[in-house]
């Protein structure tokens, strides 16, 4: 019996992992097409109809590339870093319920698990920056630690607003609490909370305008400057997986998750559409802003975002206290 359960879980995890990788591969194509649209270009068009096979061609190319390990690097740290970076970024999907009952594990501490695991990515980043033994990479690792510490707090506080409103840490419970009224529709509190979540999410994922880690015009490519071939692909995969994961979390926390018109089996599609909307919003920001400086990034976090999310959290708590308990409790 337990063996059968273990096999079932193993198969489910295998399917989910590969689904994540497949989705991430095609999300890169989507982003490239979207960016091309914004920049009045066409984007990938040659490989397959409308460039649909481009991600596969990219993956094949990266697999066939020479795997260069710098002679002066710290070999163990350098080689391990992409994996250490990738694992937490994929692990966050374990707790996401894609529809009622469809998900690997709808933990009763789902949000906490998600936040804790996604904060682990900094270890991989720092290992990559340190192990490369490159000044650009080192500077980038330094920035990474600065930025992740600064932005994980507002990110957590913003993610806790729906938790307080819903009265549960279980993601499924939070979604059920939004039946009738999504948390983003709460007057002022919901919109500001969602906005803070988006900003903190962009920063925690190191995307433009907060991509000072990569900053290719200053630090060439930052922590990944020495990586090539499949290790580079793993880092890229991890970054996109993290973006997609946090987009799903945003959709679950603020946009009512799988709730939507139509039969229940449409839930997965509703959730994915909402996550896609969050992802495209982030992409839109990425392709229209210039990058800001490291001191300004820290300033935004500590002077604006952290007090703002903290007070929003307090307001949410007050709302719950005066309206007689959380909706999901």
């Amino acid at each position, binding site marked *: 019996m337990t063996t059968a359960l273990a096999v079932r879980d193993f198969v489910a995890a295998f399917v989910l992992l590969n689904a994540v990788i497949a989705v991430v591969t095609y999300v890169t194509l989507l982003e490239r097409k979207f*960016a091309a649209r*914004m*920049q*009045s*270009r066409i984007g990938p068009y040659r490989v397959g109809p409308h460039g649909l096979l481009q991600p596969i061609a990219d993956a094949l190319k990266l697999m066939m590339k020479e795997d260069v390990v710098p002679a002066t690097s710290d070999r163990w740290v350098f080689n391990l870093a992409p994996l250490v970076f990738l694992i937490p970024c994929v692990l966050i999907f374990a707790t996401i319920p894609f529809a009622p009952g469809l998900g690997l594990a709808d933990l009763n501490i789902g949000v906490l698990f998600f936040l804790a695991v996604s904060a682990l990515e900094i270890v991989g980043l720092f290992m990559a920056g340190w192990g490369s033994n490159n*000044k*650009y990479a*080192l*500077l980038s690792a*330094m*920035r990474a630690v600065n930025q992740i510490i600064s932005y994980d707090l507002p990110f957590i506080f913003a993610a806790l607003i729906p938790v307080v409103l819903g009265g549960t840490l279980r993601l499924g419970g939070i979604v059920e609490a939004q039946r009738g009224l999504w948390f983003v529709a709460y007057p002022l509190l919901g919109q500001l909370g969602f906005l803070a979540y988006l900003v903190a999410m962009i920063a925690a994922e190191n995307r*433009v*305008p907060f*991509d*000072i880690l*990569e*900053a*290719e*015009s*200053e*630090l*060439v490519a930052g922590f990944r400057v020495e990586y090539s071939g499949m290790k580079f692909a793993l880092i890229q995969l991890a970054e996109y997986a993290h973006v997609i994961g946090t987009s799903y979390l945003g959709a679950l926390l603020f946009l009512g998750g799988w709730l939507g018109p139509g039969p229940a089996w449409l839930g997965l599609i509703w959730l994915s559409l909402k996550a896609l909307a969050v992802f495209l919003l982030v992409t839109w920001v*990425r*392709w*229209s*802003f*210039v*990058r*800001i*400086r*490291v*001191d*300004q990034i820290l300033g935004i976090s500590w002077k604006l975002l952290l007090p703002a999310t903290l007070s929003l959290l307090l307001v949410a708590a007050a709302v719950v206290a005066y309206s007689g308990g959380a909706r999901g409790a």
Partner: protein
Amino acid sequence: MPDVDAQKVIELGYSGNERLVMNMGPQHPSAHGVFRMILTLEGETIVAVDAVIGYLHRCHEKLGETLTYVQYPSIASKTDYVAAMTSELAYVLAAEKIGGIEVPRRAQYLRVLAAELQRIASHCLWLGTWCMDMGGALGGGATIFLYAIREREMVLDLFEALTGARLLYGFHQVGGTRYDLPAAWAERCRSAVDFIDTRIDEYEEMLEDNAFFLARTREVGVISRELAQEVGVSGPLIRGSGIGYDIRRLEPYSSYQEFDFKVPVETTGDCLARYRVRMVEFRESIKIVRQALDGLPAGSISSRPGVKSVGQVRIPKGEGYARVEGPRGEVGCYMIADGSPKPYRMKWRGASFSNLAVLPHIIPGHKVADVVAITGSVDPVFGEVDR
């Protein structure tokens, strides 16, 4: 190695932290060609910068002695390859000054037309690359870059129709210009500048309403009025520091005195001021192009007959200096002629070279990210720096 002055800065600013010497360039995504900066960092803050140039030296001044007055203008365009019309014009003006050669009015207007279209094209490239420095090739900077390149392309198409070349033109020659306007070119030019005019509004909307852009440029890389004069910067840099220095106004050449245009001046001297100066220059250049098309006189485009061999143009003995206002500032050509078909000696004054000299004065104290913003706002072209 850092020079003595840089070393002094390091020692003075040393506060007991670990220092890191980082090399930026000559191969670097935002090196604007081949520029090497050796930065000394304390954390993210720069305490000293040592700028190394010379990677693109091609013996232009020696070439000027070995090539004739007919040949060299096409080579002159290779000094500042982003604004090739500028240095060609400076060279032929110097030769004409020594020889006392008259230039027909139509040719003068054509020269103004070419110079101003070139300024538009050059500023387009500056805007794109500068935003890419700040926003990254994988971010909003690339978006602006692609928009700006689209407009530069329109100007290059006009130049292609005019001269047959898109980058290095060989349009100017001693005594006039080499080509006249092809049929229907004027209408095409008019509609192109009208289109670019509307696009400039879009850039300004996208950048000036953007808090991040302002945060990156305001009070960054301030060049004071005194420093600007002391170092001898020119063009948009000195006009951004509160001095309305423009050769087109102070010492008009090619009948610039007949055109109505404004010389924009900003007083703050930071990156934003330089940006604003160039954005106004965009519009003023468009204005001048329209005026030149409206008032284009009829007549010949060259004061001397065509030559059968490259050695047939001789400039009498004498020396002279001619300067023009290029997109990057004052481009000067000093020439000594000895009566032969080639100059005896020739010397370039590159605008980028003098402008670049301001970098070690303004960069220390800024963060690493500001280095690329400041370098981009200076708008150096390394063909012109190293020659």
